[in-house]
């Protein structure tokens, strides 16, 4: 296992090395890092090993599907295609001469980008792993767990007992599917992001925004009477404060998922940036001597990121469970607010 990790990390180095010369001339660490953590229309595994992903555009209510290979010329330079061009990682309308065109109708980009493709991989992985486990449970529910089942069972039980039961209370069963799915989705994608050539999916604001939004919606829709009472008529607060308290509480509802969103996004992105910056040091100093030091630091950071990958999945699930718990909690006692 250890050897496998070392192998993986050495591949990561290769990927960075492969990407560096593409910038041409002076090495720009900022550009390299930005390019890595941003989304892309191709999946660049190594130099020359590139997967061109499909582009799906909705232009003026019209579907346009073509391969992103059309955007790249022979020397890997970007070329306009069919009235569209790749500009700073975005598809824009251009005229015949390749000059930017101001579009009147909206241009929506639903392309299967690197992040989307990576998400599909993680989803396939989730399905394979958990359908196998579920099959084991279905076929012999009373036998002791075996294989991957015995690896995941303690985690599932931990989520059920320590996260759901402890923070939601007796109504925890309704939220178990969401908590389990979100935990394993984030964890798997964090780990896939650490893989060489992996996409920075959980470090993308759109992904964390959707996850946080679902948490918010579940919280709001499962809020009981006492939850709303605490927001619109907080016990123990005089009525004349209501014009201040209600907006504060309403903003409070929104800041919780907002912090969830930023936390996951920033943690994962920061991890990627740190590792890539450490590797960039080699190219900034143009020295082999910096190599071992930089690799040693990056390896250490990678191990830390493995821990962070699990920790962030745990934190997201735990805080979601706490918000659900706050929404379904029964406040019987007058002293019990908060």
């Amino acid at each position, binding site marked *: 296992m250890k050897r496998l990790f070392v192998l993986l990390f050495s591949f990561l180095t290769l990927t960075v090395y492969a990407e560096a010369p593409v910038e041409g001339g002076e090495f720009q660490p900022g550009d390299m890092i*930005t390019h890595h*953590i*941003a*989304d892309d229309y191709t999946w660049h595994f190594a130099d020359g090993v590139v997967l061109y992903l499909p582009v*799906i555009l909705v232009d003026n209510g019209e579907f346009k599907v073509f391969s992103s290979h059309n955007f790249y010329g022979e020397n890997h330079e970007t070329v306009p295609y069919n009235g569209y061009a790749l500009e*700073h*990682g975005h598809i824009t309308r251009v005229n015949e001469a390749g000059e930017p065109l101001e579009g009147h109708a909206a241009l*929506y*980009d*639903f*392309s*299967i*980008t690197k*992040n*989307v493709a990576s*998400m*599909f991989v993680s*989803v396939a992985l*989730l*399905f394979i792993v*958990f*359908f196998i*486990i*579920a099959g084991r*449970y*279905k076929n012999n*529910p*009373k036998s002791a767990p075996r294989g991957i089942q015995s690896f995941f*069972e303690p985690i*599932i*039980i931990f989520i*059920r007992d320590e996260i759901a039961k402890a923070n939601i209370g007796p109504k925890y*069963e309704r939220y*178990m*599917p*969401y908590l*389990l*799915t979100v935990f394993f*989705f984030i964890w798997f994608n964090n780990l896939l992001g650490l893989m060489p050539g992996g996409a920075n999916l959980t470090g*993308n*604001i*759109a*992904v964390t*925004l*959707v*996850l946080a939004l*679902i948490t918010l919606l579940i919280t709001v829709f499962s809020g009981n009477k006492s939850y709303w009472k605490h927001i619109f008529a907080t016990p123990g607060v005089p009525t004349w404060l209501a014009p201040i308290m209600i907006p504060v509480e309403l903003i409070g509802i929104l800041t919780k998922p907002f912090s969830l969103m930023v936390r996951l*996004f920033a943690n994962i*992105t920061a991890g990627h940036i740190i590792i890539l910056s450490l590797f960039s040091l080699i190219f900034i100093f143009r020295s082999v001597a910096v190599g071992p030091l930089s690799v040693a630091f990056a390896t250490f950071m990678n191990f830390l990121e493995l821990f962070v990958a699990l920790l962030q999945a745990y934190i997201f699930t735990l805080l979601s469970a706490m918000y659900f718990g706050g929404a379904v909690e029964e406040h019987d006692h007058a002293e019990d607010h908060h």
Partner: protein
Amino acid sequence: MELVTPGIGLLFWQTVTFLIVLFLLGKFAWKPIMTALHERETSIESALSAAEKAKLEMQALKADNEKLLAEARMERDKILKEASEAGNSIVETAKLKANEEGARMIEQARESIENEKRAAITEVKNMAASLSLEIAEQILKRELSDKTAQHTLAQDYIREVTLN
């Protein structure tokens, strides 16, 4: 700012994919897993409680056995005690009876001895009477022949009689 601007494509795909994953995993993975875990836990719990119950039953049985044993022991002791008491009483009555019998026999013997004695005395008296009669006869006969002889003889007889 691009870093914190969510792209519509990824937003769309993430929402769709996540909801599909949530639905499929919820239906085909989490449900059977949670049910199986729950079932296993309840079965383990029931097995544990059954074992506990069996243990309690065993203890009750053991206690019952001990009680029975103690009762049997007590019974035995009682029976032994009773038997020894019965034996004692039998010996006692036998002794009493024997004593009584002995006493009765002694009494009988004494009575018979008394009777014999009385009979013997009567016989002696009768014999003495007949002897006296004989003596008297003899003396009477001699009287007829010799007076002094007669006298000495009477003297002798008298002496004999008193001696006897």
